[in-house]
Each structure stands twice: as structure tokens, then as C-alpha cells.
């Protein structure tokens, strides 16, 4: 059963906020929780909520203000207390995550961090003197991938290579997660198959302390925080997957790994950032990848009728003819 937004935010996110902010958000009217996507704390700036497509400042009484003139101003103390709570007062235990710019909290919600970056040589080692925190509400919407499953899994144990094309915040991660769950569980068209999720940014499975917080299915293995290219090869060698699922490809090595996996008997389902196929083809690496004809389906998502709207489905045969 899908949890409602108010329950998710009150139980999973609010406990990690400073006491002042906790009280303010608890004053919010229940309907304001619906569609809340982000809670942003920026030092010296108003407390912001992203609800749907709009940003609102929140005042002490829990009133939303779109003009952002009378919001509660977040202090350095609020940021410090929230960071202490998120990290369980143990920043050292999250050094790697902080170096990547985010920490995942129970429930699979991602907390983005900004502050002074500490370098070790040319690598980002960690961050200190935090100045802002962004809580991104992760939602698990079961069966949201129903519309794409006939394309992705047309025959028993034969999922096909699929690329989701979508601008940010159009629901591709939520759909990919549900694709993983459905393929793993089995659909009316085929039995459940072995799925490996390569979750470089801990978004798909929302892994916290080694456990997937989202339902990604009973036959799914998760390689958490693993670079996509390396993870795909590792999975092929050791986990005998029918399908590999990963998010937001874009580097040269990702594309090489995808081609290698496709020729090793595993289907690859992945996504890229672009508004449509034409825009994707303007990126040299994507153009190269699409030209190989590796993907049997290209599925374009948008927010036109809410996140996860299927805008266009292009099959390879059509693409080749086109």
C-alpha cells in the first residue's frame, strides 16, 4: 500500500529537523503535505518548501507564503542541529556520503548538503561548515510503471533493453524503481526474473545502512553507491542477472559497460536526462549510443499530466525506419 505524503514526511523526515523547524512544519495544514517534494534549509534564508512546481516560504505559524517575504529564517544553529541529527552525531561515519554531497536517511529520502568542500588532492574528501540542507522526499508509487511494462517485459524471461528519456523531476527514478519491483516479482506476461539495481546515488533502492528502504522486489540485488560502469560488469560476472537497472547514465564508461552487458545476455534498463529524443541526440555520447541500436525501446517521460506522464514510446524498428 502506498503511504500518504503526510505520513511519509511526519515519520521519516521531520524527526531529523531542528526542534524549531520541527514545530513549524507540524503546524502545517494536512493538505499542504500533498505533493511536497523538498524541504530546504539555507542559512540566513527563509525555510522553503517545494510543493508541486512552486516554492513557498513557511512562517512560524505554519502559513505558506509564495512571495517569500515573511518566512521563518533558518539559523546556523538549525542547520547544525539538523546535520547532527541526520548523521546521528557521527559525521565521521558519513564521510564518504558527505563527500558525494548527500546522505540517505531511513525511508530512502536523500538529504543534499552544501558547505565548504574539503579536498584531498583533486578529490572531494568531505564537507564542513554546512550552509544548506535539502531534504528530497522519496516516494514509492507501486504500479506506476504499469503503462510501460508491456514494452519493457513483452515475453517471459525476456526483458528488453529500454532507455527512459526525461527531464529532471519527471518521475523516472520512481518508474525505474517500480520496473525493478515488477520484473523481480513477475507480471502477467512473464515470471519474475533476477534483477540487479546499480544504485550509484542510493536513489533507486534508497539504501540505508545496507538495507534497501524501497521495495525493489524479491529477486533484486542492489549494488549501492557503486559506480554504474563497474557495477554492471560486477553484476554480470557474479549475480547472473536477467536485467540490469541503473539511473542517469552519461559517461563514456557507462556506455561501454552497457554495450558489454547487452552482449552478455542481460537486458539493460536505464535513463538519461533530456526533454525528448531530439535533445538526447544532440549529446555526442548519447548520439553514439542511440546509433548502435542497442535499445529496443525509448520511452520519453514528462510532467504534463503529473510526474511520470508517458509522452512517447519509440520502438527500435520504428526508430531505425525513421
Amino acid at each position, binding site marked *: 500500500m502506498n503511504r500518504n505524503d503526510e505520513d511519509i514526511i511526519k515519520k521519516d523526515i521531520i*524527526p531529523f529537523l*531542528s*526542534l524549531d523547524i*520541527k514545530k513549524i512544519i507540524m503546524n502545517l495544514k494536512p493538505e499542504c503535505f500533498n505533493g511536497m517534494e523538498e524541504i530546504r534549509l539555507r542559512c540566513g534564508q527563509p525555510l522553503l518548501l517545494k510543493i508541486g512546481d512552486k516554492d513557498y516560504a513557511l512562517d512560524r505559524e505554519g502559513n505558506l507564503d509564495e512571495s517569500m517575504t515573511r518566512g521563518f529564517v533558518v539559523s546556523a544553529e538549525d542547520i*547544525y*542541529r539538523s546535520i*547532527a*541529527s541526520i*548523521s*546521528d*552525531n*557521527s*559525521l*565521521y*561515519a558519513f*564521510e564518504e556520503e558527505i563527500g558525494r554531497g548527500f546522505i540517505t536517511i531511513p525511508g530512502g529520502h536523500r538529504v543534499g548538503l552544501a558547505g565548504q568542500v*574539503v579536498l584531498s588532492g583533486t578529490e572531494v*574528501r*568531505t564537507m*564542513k561548515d554546512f550552509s544548506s540542507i535539502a531534504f528530497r522526499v522519496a516516494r514509492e508509487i507501486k504500479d506506476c510503471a504499469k503503462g510501460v511494462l508491456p514494452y519493457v517485459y513483452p515475453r517471459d524471461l525476456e526483458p528488453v533493453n529500454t532507455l527512459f528519456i526525461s527531464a529532471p523531476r519527471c518521475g523516472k527514478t520512481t518508474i525505474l524503481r517500480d520496473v525493478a519491483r515488477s520484473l523481480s516479482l513477475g507480471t502477467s506476461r512473464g515470471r519474475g526474473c533476477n534483477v540487479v539495481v546499480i544504485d550509484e546515488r542510493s536513489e533507486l533502492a534508497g539504501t540505508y545502512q545496507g538495507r534497501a528502504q524501497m521495495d525493489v522486489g524479491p529477486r533484486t540485488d542492489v549494488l549501492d553507491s557503486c559506480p554504474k560502469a563497474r557495477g554492471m560488469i560486477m553484476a554480470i560476472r557474479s549475480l547472473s542477472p536477467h536485467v540490469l537497472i541503473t539511473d542517469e547514465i552519461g559517461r563514456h564508461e557507462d556506455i561501454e559497460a552497457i554495450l558489454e552487458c547487452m552482449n552478455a545476455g542481460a537486458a539493460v534498463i536505464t535513463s538519461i536526462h533530456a526533454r525528448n529524443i531530439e535533445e538526447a541526440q544532440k549529446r555526442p555520447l548519447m548520439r553514439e549510443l542511440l546509433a548502435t541500436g542497442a535499445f529496443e525501446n525509448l520511452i520519453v517521460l514528462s510532467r504534463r499530466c503529473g510526474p511520470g506522464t508517458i509522452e512517447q514510446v519509440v520502438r527500435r524498428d520504428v526508430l531505425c525506419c525513421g
Partner: protein
Amino acid sequence: MLWLKTMGIVLVVSGFGSYGLMGARSIEKRVEQIRNIRLAMGFLEKEITYLHTPLPTALCRAAQSVPAPARRLFTDCSQSLQDRQGITVSEAWTQSLEKLRHSSDLTKLDLQLLQSLSSQMGMSGVEEQKKLFGLIQEQLKIQEEKARCELESGRKIRSYGGFILGATVVLLLI
């Protein structure tokens, strides 16, 4: 009347004497307590730097390695953090030290030294934590050495001093 006087003398001398002996015992206990806290700090450092154990759990494990009252310092702090009432490690550590002040034989200086940990404990990277715990253990070792030096002379002064003071009071009263 003589028996009453004798009784009074015995009571005064033994009262002052006992107070002196308690003082001597307190000096001994202080050395032991500093040592235990230093050992627990070493344990905590390893939990943090090698195992990256979250602080509430690391404190709880460090507590298991030493007896009371050092154990209570770590247990109380761990408990306050695990309660998740929005308390920071600095506040939890300060509260635990306040409780320790009443139940231990540590001096103000010892407690100040431990208080210096509060602002940084847990709230920086592994390397910084390693340096912090290395430093505090060094300082505790110095404090322990000082306490040990004070032990020999202090113990005698307090043990005998109590009885001598008692006797002096008796002489003055007579």
C-alpha cells in the same frame, strides 16, 4: 563526667580521622577514575576511527570496557543521544559530565579537560576525530601522572592529617 569526656574525645578524633581517610581514598579513586576514562577514550577512538561506528553505539560499547563511574559517563551520553530528542552530542556530553561531577572524585580541572571534547566529538571527519582523541588521551595521561604524584604525599597528609586535626581540636577544647 570522665567517661563523657573520653567519649567526646574519641568521637572528635575518629570523626576527623574518618574524614581524612575518606579524603585519602578519594585521591586514590581519582587516579583510578582518570585511568578508566582514558582507557574508555582509547576504546571509543578505535570504534570511531577503525569501525566508523555511529557515536551512540560507540559510546555504549566504550562504556562496557570500564567500571563505574566512568561507565556511567559514556552510558548516559549514549542514552541521551539514542533518545533522539533533538539533543546534540555537545549537550549530551555536558549533561553527562554534570552527573559525573556529583558521583566521581574528579577535580574541576579533570572535568574541564573532558568538557573540551564536547564541541568536536563526532562532528568531524575520521582524521580529525583521531587527532582529537589522541590529544585528549595524552592530556588525560598527564593528568593521571599528576594525580599519581599527588597520591603518595596527599594520602599520608590526609590520613594522618585527619587524626592530627581531630587531636588538635580536642586539645583546644580542653
